[in-house]
């Protein structure tokens, strides 16, 4: 039931904009909890890398006196990967293409993270 609700949040997030291509909820240890990823993406790889990136972001923010980490944004030539905390023990990863409006992406991901946090 709860898994279904989390999946619905991720599906809704993906449906909010045509630029959002994938979303995944991952434990901070790198275990996939729920995802709406394209078939070509390997869940295990995505989850491990995203969790590692968030861990590094946490440490970097702390080391450079930027306070508590809010998000990590990776931008490549084809799109963006937005990583934000979803509660203490989970991470929400949203993958969007280059056409995404970053402000909207941040907002949509933030609301989705709040929604899944309440379900965890």
């Amino acid at each position: 039931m709860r898994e279904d609700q989390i999946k619905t949040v991720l599906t809704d997030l993906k449906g909010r904009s045509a630029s959002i291509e994938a979303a995944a909820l991952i434990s901070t240890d790198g275990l996939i909890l729920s995802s709406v990823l394209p078939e070509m993406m390997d869940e295990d790889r995505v989850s491990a890398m995203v969790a590692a990136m968030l861990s590094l972001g946490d440490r970097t923010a702390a080391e450079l006196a930027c306070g508590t980490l809010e998000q990590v944004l990776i931008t490549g030539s084809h799109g963006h990967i937005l990583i934000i905390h979803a509660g203490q023990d989970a991470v929400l990863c949203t993958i969007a293409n280059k056409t995404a409006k970053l402000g909207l992406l941040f907002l949509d991901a933030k609301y989705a993270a709040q929604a899944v946090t309440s379900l965890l």
Partner: protein
Amino acid sequence: MELHYSDRNLELFCHVAGLSREDQIVLTAVRDNVHPLIPWLTDRFYEVLAEEPEIKPYIEGRVEQLKKTHVVWLESLFAGDYGVDFIKRQEKIGETHVRVRVPPLFVAASMAFLRGALPPVLVVNVPDAKQAMLATASVLRLLDLCQYLIDRKYAEVLMDNLGISPVLLTRLQTVGKGLALAS
């Protein structure tokens, strides 16, 4: 050997390596034969290190202090107590190496030096040939244990500094190289 090891990895190491209480007895028995030669061995070791331009900056200006530490560490190999305190001392070395940025290469090279240097010392200075042979096998096993403990702690501290938990590290290792796109 006092194997107060509560961790499965160390149990596995000792089992596969054949490291046991027997090694404690064997190494303690040759302690008096080896002790007088330890300072010489340490001097030789630091001569070799000083020849390496990449290592020189790590030891310059504090060779005498490092030698003292090395002598104590070498003596501990023949002290017969390889329990919790022994393990903690090896782990402390690993922690220190992260802090002072001594790479694992130096540990591996140093251990290789000792694996080459200690057997002849034992053969020449232990009167009983069988005892010398047994002590050689024991000290080689123990050096391997030390290297494992030092390297393991080094990796743990390094990963902790990066915020990578052991579970996450295992996942990262198993995902392998390449893209997150399924092949």
